[in-house]
């Protein structure tokens, strides 16, 4: 069942239609049993969503939280292993109570940077050695619109990077200096990968893999900047 009004039923339900559309749809509902039935079902979905109960975690998370916020890392090791994911115990470390300063979780940043750098290097090596298996799974660069799409995505990423860089510069004073240092190292690794990919792409503009690799590396940079900006501005 679909008609021109079907897509407006949620807005009708939420009271978000302009008065004229609301009046017209109201009249339609009087004569269309299908739409009236769909509206009733949508109402039930909303009612059930609002009535969903909260679900407490199966395990008490407080001991690990307390260990982190009080800096008593040793307390985390006393937590029953099955109750807390092992990686959380490994990550337990003192958290600075000087709350106005934000710091990344160290292993997260270091792991992210290393992972990006390693993946970028490995992917770059694979892409430039002419591995035909990779090319089989990449889009055809000659396909209409591919170049335009890639170019638009790249422009979009560059704009996002510039915007995030500005936001991060504004919130930089709120980040722990050590965090800033690691962040800059990771960004430098990613930027090096981007430069390499761009140089290779200049030499082989039709290589679909290099196009994708460049795009993905830039996306990694956007995401790292986004995370840093978020942490600097989080409430």
């Amino acid at each position, binding site marked *: 069942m679909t008609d021109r009004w079907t897509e407006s039923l949620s*807005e009708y339900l939420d009271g978000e239609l302009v008065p004229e559309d609301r009046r017209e749809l109201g009249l339609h509902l009087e004569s269309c049993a299908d739409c009236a039935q769909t509206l009733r079902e949508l109402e039930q*979905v909303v009612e059930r969503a609002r009535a*969903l109960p*909260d*679900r407490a*975690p199966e395990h008490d998370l407080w001991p690990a939280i307390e260990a*982190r916020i009080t800096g008593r890392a040793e307390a985390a090791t006393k937590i029953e292993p099955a109750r807390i994911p092992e990686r959380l115990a490994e990550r337990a470390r003192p*958290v600075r109570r000087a*709350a106005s300063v934000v710091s990344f979780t160290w292993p997260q940043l270091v792991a992210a940077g290393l992972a990006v750098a390693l993946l970028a290097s490995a992917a770059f090596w694979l892409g430039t050695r002419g591995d035909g298996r990779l090319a089989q799974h990449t889009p055809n660069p000659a396909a209409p619109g591919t170049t335009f799409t890639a170019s638009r995505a790249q422009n979009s990423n560059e704009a996002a990077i510039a915007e995030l860089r500005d936001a991060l510069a504004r919130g930089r004073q709120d980040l722990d200096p050590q965090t800033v240092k690691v962040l800059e190292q990771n960004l430098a690794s990613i930027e090096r990968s981007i430069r390499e990919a761009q140089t290779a792409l200049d030499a082989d503009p039709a290589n679909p893999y290099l196009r994708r690799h460049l795009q993905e590396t830039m996306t990694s940079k956007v995401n790292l900047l986004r995370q840093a900006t978020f942490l600097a501005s989080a409430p």
Partner: protein
Amino acid sequence: MRDTHPGVALVTGEPEAAAVAEPSLVALAAAGDTRAFERLYRQHVGRVHSLACRLAGREHAEELTQEVFIRAWEKLWTFRGEASFGTWVSRVAVRWILTWRSAQAVQRRRTENNEILEWLPAKAARPDVAMDVEAAMEKLPDGARQVFVLHDVEGFKHEEIARLLEVSVGTSKAQLHRARMLLRRHLDR
């Protein structure tokens, strides 16, 4: 939002302890009192954990819940009491979880396509089986599930959802309608 009345909640989780108004607990916690923060945690952990389950999946929910409360502790000094602590901490949770999800998406590109929708039968096969909204929500495409949870479960407005998810208001409305239309197929008759 589900609760928007600052200052009215009383924390009575410990029978032997006198009921303490939530703003007092927040003030104590902001001054470094971990016992006060523990009581806030116990009061609101269910809500944060539910949100994590619905936005990120059960397998990551406990870890994310823990991280959210650590973030809340670190950022407690920014809490101004304009809304309830529950509303504030749920916003901290949403922002943290969505950021986590976007980082995950770099490695695990889960595209929204029609294959994901194939799990949905036309109608419930057994009328006696009540609709399991939670289970059905987990199967929704990512975008539709995020908007549905934020709008219909958590009570966010489309404008705020659009900002959080970096989409247009129109996209938020379209995703909400899509989610509701998919979920209605699981209503028992």
